[in-house]
């Protein structure tokens, strides 16, 4: 399946030209998309969250809308509203920004839980219910939410149950010195974005998504994943371990990751690459994110592959 690998490499290269020095994160975002999951990007403002989302949408040739979440945003502002049409004498539905293939929910933790949950319903069901009518969202439907770290003031942190709806959470972090110099010396990346052409079309994306489930996970690999999950449940520093749903998400991401690496089977390295993005936001109880990351590293170091 080198074709998927080729496509992935091209995508990473093109997006990487705009979002410089973040190849690993771009790959993870792609894996998340191929695994039909939604992505949460958590970082401080100005780290390129929006750029990543926009570039992804453009490179994949998908329709794209952006919702800027604010504290006074209402659910209707997302899903849409029926307006009385005087000419027809009837209500006409005006779809909200959620009716798009890629939705960038910018700063999702700035809005109230009520509005947050309107989006989250769309994410889990692939449909929205407006005024008693269920409307299908376009396919593929991919939400990229960004959020500022909850420690900042004026935020409504997402509860654990809703964090669970995101397949992955990634952090962009500061660029490394080389990338940063390149960034400073070059043009504004947003200008380049306008020239970016779609590398694949919808049909190809759907094919790739379909292939992910066919990637083989051998018995000993399943066993490895299970032991990793078990380990998260026995750590005293954590209140809760990874749920079985989290475990399935991990396996699905590892499959997508393996496929992007040109393999039809999952190896432990795929699981290890996905563990932190998939499980980081699902583990709670630790004091802060830094601690969660070190715990995950500890788990990886204590569970052997055989």
């Amino acid at each position: 399946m080198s074709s998927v690998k080729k496509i992935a490499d091209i995508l990473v290269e093109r997006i990487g030209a705009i979002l410089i020095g973040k190849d690993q994160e771009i790959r993870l975002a792609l894996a998340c998309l191929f695994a039909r999951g939604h992505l949460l990007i958590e970082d401080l403002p100005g780290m390129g969250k929006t750029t990543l989302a926009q570039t992804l949408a453009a490179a994949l040739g998908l329709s794209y809308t952006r919702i800027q979440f604010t504290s006074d945003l209402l659910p209707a502002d997302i899903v849409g509203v029926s307006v009385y049409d005087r000419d027809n004498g009837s209500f006409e539905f005006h779809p909200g920004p959620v009716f798009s293939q890629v939705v960038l929910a910018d700063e999702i933790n700035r809005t109230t839980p009520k509005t947050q949950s309107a989006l989250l319903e769309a994410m889990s069901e692939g449909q929205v219910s407006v005024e008693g009518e269920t409307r299908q969202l376009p396919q593929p439907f991919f939400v990229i939410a960004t959020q500022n770290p909850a420690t900042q003031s004026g935020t409504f942190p997402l509860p654990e149950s809703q964090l669970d709806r995101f397949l992955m959470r990634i952090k962009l972090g500061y660029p490394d010195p080389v990338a940063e110099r390149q960034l400073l010396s070059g043009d504004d990346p947003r200008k380049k974005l306008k020239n970016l052409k779609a590398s694949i079309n919808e049909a190809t994306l759907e094919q790739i998504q379909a292939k992910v489930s066919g990637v083989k996970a051998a018995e000993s690999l399943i066993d490895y994943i299970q032991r990793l999950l078990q380990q998260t449940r026995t750590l005293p520093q954590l209140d809760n371990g990874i749920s079985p749903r989290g475990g399935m998400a991990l396996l699905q991401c590892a499959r997508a990751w393996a496929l992007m690496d040109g393999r039809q089977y999952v190896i432990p390295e795929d699981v290890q690459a996905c563990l932190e993005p998939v499980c980081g936001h699902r583990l709670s109880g630790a004091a802060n994110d830094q601690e969660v990351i070190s715990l995950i590293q500890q788990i990886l170091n204590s569970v052997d592959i055989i």
Partner: protein
Amino acid sequence: MQPTWQTPRPALLWMLISVVTALALHAGHLPLWLLGAAALTVLWQIQVYRGAWQHPARFIKVLLTLLCFGGVLSSYGRLLGLEPMVALLVSGFLLKLLEIHHRRDALVLIYLAYFIVIIQCLFEQGIVTGFVVVFGVMIVTAALAGLYQNNQNTQNKQTNRSGKLGTWFRPFRSSAVIIVQSLPLMLVLFIVMPRIGALWAVPKEQGSGVVGVSDSMSPGDFSDLGGSSKVAFRVEFEGDIPAQSTLYWRGLVFSDFNGRRWSQSGSWGYQDGSLLQWYGEKPEPWDRQATRRGDALSYKVTLEATNSPWLFALATPKPTSQDVALTRDFRLFSKRPLSSKTQYRVNSWLDYDLETGGLSSWRRKIELALPEGFNPKTRAIAEQWRQESPDPVALLNRLLKLYNKEFIYTLKPPLLGKHTVDEFLWETKRGFCEFYASSFVFFARAAGIPARVVVGYQGGERHPSEDYLLVHQYDAHAWAEVWLEGRGWIRVDPTAAVAPERIEMSFADLFGENEDFLAESLLSLERYRHINWLNNLRLRLDALDYAWAKWVLGYENVQTDLLTGILGRLDPLRVGLFLLAAGALAMLPVAIMSLLGREKKYRDELDKFFIQFCQRMERAGIARRPGEGPRDFAARIESLRPDLADQVSSLTGLFEQQRYNTAVLNKRDLRLKLRRFRPYLRSKIP
């Protein structure tokens, strides 16, 4: 007091079951009101748990405590003694159930439950009791396990989704596993642990309901010898079982007659040394008066509890067990009253002479004493006979002939008045062994022949398949011994003169069809011995019971020989080391099983191969980090030692393909391929 701790539901259930089990075990010897109180406390605890009722207030608890004390006192009339103490303990146990506020209270209750369950062994030690007690311990352990299960629940919520019934039964399952795992250790401790004598004696009810030979005999007082089918003792002979007619198991010798009752003569009468000659100590002077001829008959007797110290043996015995003494009248005597099944070994010489050297005057006085004012007719006739035939043997034969001609053996003789011997000999002429022995000895003494009554058992039932003799309570018998000049003491069984078949056949064979025989025990299997399969069943059960007595209860007697056989010599160091070694050996299977349970992973050839590869790399200075995948490891090796790259990538590639991709090679090919790598794995990396 506010309850701050809630008993976990399964623990409560099992605690209540433990309470019921402990009570049920002791139900036989607890007063009825205590069982009612148990039901009440259990109900109370359930209601408290449901939140319907309150824990009892302090003054109610004080009141209940006093009530229990009073109840025990009024039921037994005293507080000392085993049964009142157990009743007191049980009432405290029940009251504790009413005040479980913390885990420690529940623990106290559970530990008490262990104690109460095990106390049952003081009352009974049969095979069924053994198993029931182990089962009780299992239930109490389940309560203990349930008490700690809650913690486990919070720890791994995910694994704990078994059904509702599962949560209730999990404590019992873990308890059963614990007990089964500890079985080997129990066995080792049982076999090796030296038996330490009782540190304290448990006062048990004297003679409560135990039938057997009593320490006196008064023929004519009770007139119904129904016979009990209970086993008196079992005997295992080293050789063949002697003929039925020689099996006279001597228990007690009665020389003292007060006109109504025969009893042992007071010890004050004897003047030649101590009355008891303990096994292992030097013989008393009177031991010389016994001449034992020929080979000894060796046997082992397992006596049921009698609560008296008398032991039974064939004449003339010599004990070969600790704490058993030979008495002045050549019977056996135990150091302690037998409160439980006891085993002892004896050597007997069936060919013997006793006191042939003549009776000293004080001995003669004891064996000729007759009470004044009783049985004048017998005394007169005896005097008359003596004048007619001065030879004592002829005189006694004449008396036996009289018995044979005119007397009838019956289990239901008429009651006798003041002159028991007169009435029996010359009027009623009906009776059983005691009547014959009593009248015979009286007559002999009246005719100037020293004589005494001996009671014990006669005969026994041969177990058809197991090689032992079964002596029942209905084999109890009384006979006479007369002393003849130059011949010493001679056994005479006047009953044999009346009913010789009584001696030659077993008692049960003789009276088995009789309505009156065993009339009191309708349910006794013995009663149905003429039904063949039931009789077989009875004998089977008896063999099982005997095996239990011999190997479990009486293990002490075998232990020393067994251990000496294994260890050569018994000293604390050897026994201790053997205990440790055997304990370790016994726990080994358990350890292996639990290890196997944990290590039952995919340690197949491929994994071993990969581990070997990792070890080789480790020797070369590149150790695989825990959790490092094969591909990452290979990449790291490549960056550190580019010269190894080819081999390493082909190795890890094979592993990865085989392990995580669809297995490319079948088992045989894989083995071949792995073999090809072997020399490489063994070689040293420069």
